[in-house]
């Protein structure tokens, strides 16, 4: 039975340079029934690591109609602990079965002892961490037999011992490991605001060849006295400032597959799709513009 399932998707379906949406369980049936015109869907593989049952059947069905991307939250690339080979093997099983067009993971850690925080905690940006992250990325890529994308994190604190700026660390990890970059534009905005970093400085070392995917999401704003902390809660539509930053990134980096992420206060599929179309309109107008200027 497993072999029959594997053979359904003999090769990865490329994720197109269109806008896509994070796949939520409450939208499964609408997507199957209405077959919306949407470029691709993204899943967290950890949610499909059961052995059978409904989630895998839904995913099998939706994968037969759309390309998918797998965005892992569990490998803990920045942990001092060795990677969990059971988790890696589960990830490989899903990648082999569903043949995603893209596979990605965060620049973060979640594993300090023999238990997991289920969160994305920022790294200590030192040479020691860099070597470790590069080794871990390479281990994931060797296991999966493919290149992965690494996402810039949103973060709320920094460690004093850090010696390397986040963007330099990220770009160096990508260069040394042969991975690509998943540029989360909202995370750039959130982290720069939270730490008083300059957005242009952050984006400066990022080049077109590195970036394989873009993420967009909404964040919350919390006031603390006369300061604000932005919380990456994926609970509201993308804000105006992040849309502006997105257009800036597309103009600089090209028409990169773009995902709208929504993980709390999940709206109807129609409402989510409107946001996806908003991103897609910009990708289209970028292509028209660049066609005019280059052609």
């Amino acid at each position, binding site marked *: 039975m497993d072999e029959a399932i594997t053979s359904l998707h003999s090769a990865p379906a490329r994720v197109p340079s269109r806008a896509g949406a994070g796949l939520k369980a409450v939208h499964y049936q609408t997507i199957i029934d209405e077959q919306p015109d949407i470029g691709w869907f993204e899943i967290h593989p*950890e*949610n499909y*690591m*059961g*052995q*059978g*049952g*409904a*989630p895998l*059947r839904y995913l099998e069905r939706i994968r037969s109609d759309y390309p998918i991307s797998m965005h892992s*939250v*569990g*490998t*803990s690339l920045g*942990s*001092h602990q060795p990677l*969990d080979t059971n*988790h890696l093997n*589960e990830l490989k099983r899903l990648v082999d079965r569903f043949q995603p067009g893209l596979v990605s993971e965060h620049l973060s*850690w*979640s594993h*300090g*002892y*023999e*238990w*997991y*925080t*289920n*969160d994305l*905690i920022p790294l*200590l940006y*030192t040479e*020691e*961490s860099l070597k*470790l992250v590069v080794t871990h990325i390479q281990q994931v890529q060797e296991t999966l037999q493919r290149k992965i994308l690494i996402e810039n994190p949103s973060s*709320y*604190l*920094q*460690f*004093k*011992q850090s010696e390397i700026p986040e963007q330099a660390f990220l770009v160096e990890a990508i260069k040394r490991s042969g991975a690509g970059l998943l540029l989360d534009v909202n995370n750039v905005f959130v982290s720069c605001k*939270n*730490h008083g970093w300059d957005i242009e400085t952050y984006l400066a070392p990022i080049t077109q060849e590195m970036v394989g995917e873009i993420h967009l999401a909404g964040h919350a704003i919390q006031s*603390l006295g006369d*300061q604000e*902390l932005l*919380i990456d809660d994926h609970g509201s539509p993308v804000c105006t400032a992040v849309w502006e930053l997105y257009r800036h990134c597309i103009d600089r980096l090209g028409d990169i597959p773009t995902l709208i992420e929504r993980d709390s206060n999940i709206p109807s599929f129609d409402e989510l799709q409107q946001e996806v179309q908003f991103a897609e309109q910009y990708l289209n107008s970028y292509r028209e513009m660049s066609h005019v200027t280059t052609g």
Partner: protein
Amino acid sequence: MSPLAELQQAFCDALLSPEVPAESLLNELVDDGLALQRFNVYRNNFIVLNGDALADMYPVIKRLIGEEAFRALASAYVRLHPPQERALLLYGAQFPPFLESIPELSGLPYLSAVARIEYAWTESYHAEDSAVLSEQQVSTVPTEALGSCQLLPHPTLHLIHSDYPVHAIWQANQADDCNQVISLDQGESHVVILRPDIDVEVREVSRGAFHFLKRLQLGESIDRAYEAASQQDNSFDPGSFLTEHLFDGTFYKIKPSA
């Protein structure tokens, strides 16, 4: 230990504790006057997001004790039993015994068994898909050999017994049915949870049927399982039980005893 390992372990220690983090950890954070609040974002994520996973696993428990009490218990549980796996699909295995250990809940003695039904439901939901017993498989066994065969219950099948009417309590909390009165004097409950195909089924069965399935699950022959079941419940009638359940997904395989 390397500076990275030390820092990561100190960070995890601070996530587990509700107290202000150790000075040694706070000294590691860039401080703009908000270092503690910044750290709190991570501790809140740890407690609340894992608590959400627990609430998702145990919706009936949450209804039975209310949101506020559930949150308090979930926070304590997350600290005591942080996730052991990266996928949270089956997070919360220790919650039923944890509920039993809380003195304030001793007035709700059925709670832990209701939680076991909910956990078993999710285990069945994510279990490997398995075929169900077919007429074809049974008809190939000679009649005289049937009694000595093993009749294996479906691999997704779980059995839960409680001295309280936990099936009725679980059932009443599946919908917003406000008018039900459930009397604990109804007594014990024998619950079978299984997923023959795509939908998880939760059934109440007789005492005899429960023990019959339990023995079969242990790999005993049909004869032995029947004898054990009828000792527990002399009204157990294998004829009517098997007519109803032999091919409804309760079983998946018949084979000669090992």
